[in-house]
């Protein structure tokens, strides 16, 4: 398992965390938005699919997958959402304004893939 601060607290209290309680991405990770195109409902906008960004924050507490929730599943395995940043110039071919401009958005864990930095 990857070392992280949550895990060292766990060791101190001598408990084992359920796997899903540990976020799989950390701040600074480079991630790519999955390209899959769900039928029926999705919360990852098309403009982000396949784009690469950086994890800015791990959102707590974990939540249910909002795509499943939309079909009435109010309970179930909870995973993390991640706030991810994307430079505007990476999202839009013709972005002519300041190259420092960025977009931030929350994405559910299953919507992201780890990329090599």
């Amino acid at each position: 398992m990857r070392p992280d601060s949550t895990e060292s607290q766990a060791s101190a209290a001598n408990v084992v965390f359920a796997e899903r309680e540990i976020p799989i991405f950390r701040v600074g990770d480079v991630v790519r938005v999955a390209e899959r195109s769900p039928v029926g409902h999705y919360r990852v906008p098309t403009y982000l699919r396949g784009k690469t960004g950086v994890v800015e924050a791990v959102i707590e507490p974990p939540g249910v997958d909002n795509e499943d929730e939309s079909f009435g599943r109010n309970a179930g395995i909870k995973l993390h959402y991640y706030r991810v940043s994307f430079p505007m110039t990476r999202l839009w071919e013709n972005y002519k304004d300041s190259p420092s401009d960025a977009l931030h958005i929350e994405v559910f864990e299953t919507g992201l893939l780890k990329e090599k930095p």
Partner: protein
Amino acid sequence: MTATEQHVKRLPNDIGGLPAAPIQQVEHPLEPWEKRCHALADVLDYHKIINTEEKRRGVEALGAEMVNSLSYYERWIVAFANILFQKGILVPGELALKMEEVEARFHDSDPGAAAPRDS
């Protein structure tokens, strides 16, 4: 991608980045029924009869034509009706009958009948 896949893959509300008109800074105070509709959405979510995400999906499921022609709260109430039918909480016939009954109250020309009966 075939020509029709786009209709399935891109929902009518998924408009981020599409070209659009200049922003008109319009706002309107909610009609009483719109506010009741908003309150209904919140209360349905509290009870998890229709959670907020189900509402969003229900609005999307109306399809592009309705999404683009009904107003914000009109979309909500039609979506609620559909979802309640899908869940077997209401059936279309009973809603139709009740709507007839409600409409008849207004034909009896009592402006007070517009106020919520209860709740």
